């Protein structure tokens, strides 16, 4: 991921230049909309309104169509994301082995609800349906690292340390 776009209202020109290498490969291609959005989000960390407009322009689709598709899928974000993303797996196996309690505690520790990002952009907390590590349930994914039950002590220490920073 490149430098995340920290704030709303970035200048369109600047954004257009930054996204040009991606947009040029998809120009006029309707079928490539989802991979295009994935790449744009990979670059920016989220999908600001200005970026969606640029995508619509490049593909020749209406903005409504672009937003319609983007908002259908859970992996596209319309708000800036935190520097660290904590995802609590709430799949079946994690659910019956205590995921709801972990989520509750994380919400308390971080002061944000699932699906929210802290105001200082330090953390994003969200739930994920299943990461396919059910045998290690309950698991929490921090950035791209999967933490199993035994590692949760480390998780709390880590969270506390990051909060102080």
């Amino acid at each position, binding site marked *: 991921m490149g430098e995340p776009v920290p704030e709303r209202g970035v200048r369109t020109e600047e954004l257009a230049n930054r996204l040009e290498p991606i947009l040029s490969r998809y120009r006029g291609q309707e079928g490539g909309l989802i*991979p295009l959005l994935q790449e744009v989000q990979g670059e920016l960390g989220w999908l600001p309104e200005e970026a969606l407009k640029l995508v619509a322009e490049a593909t020749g689709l209406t903005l409504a169509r672009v937003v319609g598709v983007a908002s*259908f899928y859970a992996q596209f974000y319309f708000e800036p994301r935190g520097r660290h993303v904590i995802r609590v797996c709430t799949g079946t196996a994690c659910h019956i082995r205590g995921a709801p309690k972990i989520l509750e505690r994380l919400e308390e520790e971080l002061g944000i609800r699932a699906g929210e990002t802290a105001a200082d952009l330090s953390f994003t907390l969200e739930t994920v*349906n299943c990461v*396919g590590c059910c045998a290690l349930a309950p698991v929490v994914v921090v950035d791209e690292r999967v933490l199993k039950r035994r590692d949760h002590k480390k998780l709390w220490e880590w969270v506390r340390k990051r909060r102080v920073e």
Partner: protein
Amino acid sequence: MRLESARDLEDLREELLREPRRPTVRVCCGTGCRAAGAEEVLSAFEREVERHGLDVEVTSSGCQGWCERGPLVAAEARQVFYLSVSPHDVPAIVDHTLRRGRPLERLLYHTPSGEPVPNREEIPFYRKQVRVVLRNCGRVNPTDIRDYIRVGGYSALAKVLTQMSPEQVIEEVERAGLRGRGGAGFPTARKWAACRAQQETPKYLICNGDEGDPGAFMDRSVLEGDPHSVIEGMVIAAYAIGDVPEGYIYVRAEYPLAVRHLEIALRQAEEYGLLGEDILGTGFSFRIEIKRGAGAFVCGESTALMYSIEGKRGMPRQTPPRSVERGLWGKPTVLNNVKTFASVPVIISRGADWFAGIGTEGSKGTQVFALTGKVQNTGLVEVPMGITIRELVYDIGGGPREGRIKAVQIGGPSGGCIPEHLFDVPVDFDSLQEVGAMMGSGGLVVMDEADCMVAIARYFLSFTQAESCGKCTPCRVGTYRMLRIMDRIVEGKGRIEDLEELERLGRWIKETSLCGLGRSAPNPILTTLRYFREEYLAHIEDRYCPAGVCRSPGHYRINPEECIWCGLCAEACEDGAVRRTRQGFSIDPRLCTGCGRCRAVCPTGAVLFTEEVAV
């Protein structure tokens, strides 16, 4: 290196087999073992082997199955299998096993009576398994095509392209009795033949790796651990269907490692001339592209998945026309599950009769399950169709962790809960349907007495309700209404009429929804209503959750007129909320968590419950 003919492939294989086999240490690097620290173990082995200057090959593999006890390490030449290995154990393993040829006892599996078992195949967790789809998973390095070729990989493709007509391939798959492994169990050969018969071209082929069921990770393990078997199966399918220039593998967004391994495998297959233009010099061409999902459960449904590839909202459409007539971009399309494709090469190379010899009359072959929940051994298992749930849970799963096993949930949010007294039901497509569940994709979650079946059913419904795409009314509104009722029941505010209403709504949603998501969404509720009705009644009539999971926000108090001072309520209370005073027993509302145990044990009905009044 490009293979120009089937002969070239055989020559390469012979050459690879002639290479002296160095003793191999295979460290499982599936997502499960990775989370347990497998990568550190792998590099510790590399360091240690180098330090001693040993002639040992250290390599990684895909999922070896027993995720619970990872990281797993197989020292193959010595047939020794280690569990829960940490980097600190590595010097001892190298010293004992690789240098002196002795197993390191403390890291072996031990039977309950304390006997160490060095050989993987003799461990109860593995003994009853029959590995067909997972034949190479954990036994080859998924990032090296030569490993796959060495164990016979791509020989089925060579045979198909040089010795068989497309019709013969379909005939062989038909005789094998292969049914789709995505859950519904549609006969694979019939799907291929129907698409082959279409006039319109080009046709498309899709591998469905959008494994969205919570509690399932079979497809992920196959894609991560043995991607070439899926690719080989797809090329064979493309040849059998005909006029298929291109195929797609649709992988769920949450599986980054699977995408990485697939990318490597596709690149290698193309380099070796096993994919792309003029495969093995036969003139047959077929390309494969990876499509990453973007996080929508409903995209596991075939028509929705196709819209998603087209760059649209992934909403299912009405069928017919079926996908084999009008699928991707309006062209005839075959969509099969990851495990279906992975089964194809082994059917071709070992023959339909061999495959049909495994399993039952109506369900041939094996099924891969993600065995999770409240059993001792969790992980990825592959068993012949027709095995009983009891064998799966007790023999392979090793029975309960503590307490008593109450039920299994099979088939994810579209499946059902099967109670303990039906554990002798054979696991195959048709038997499961009879008891109200379904094979689904193969998630198998074991539940014990600490799990509330009402809360579990509500959990699954909340999942499907949230993932409903909203296109058809029965699913959009119906699941929402069912969920509101379930919310009421778990909060202890249910009414007895609610049960009938749930059944009525459930039947309607099943009959009238547009796609499989809606048609199966009521299953968890309907099966629990059928087999665990007494738990629903306890929640409604007694405002009590027998498993102690659901809390009812409300106010409990003891009526002194009825109280006989037996003290059972005080004994039952785990929160110390029931106090004994001179005036009798009373409940401290500050300590009461609303579990309702006191009310359930009271012999005279003296514990009164008042619902919380909304302000």
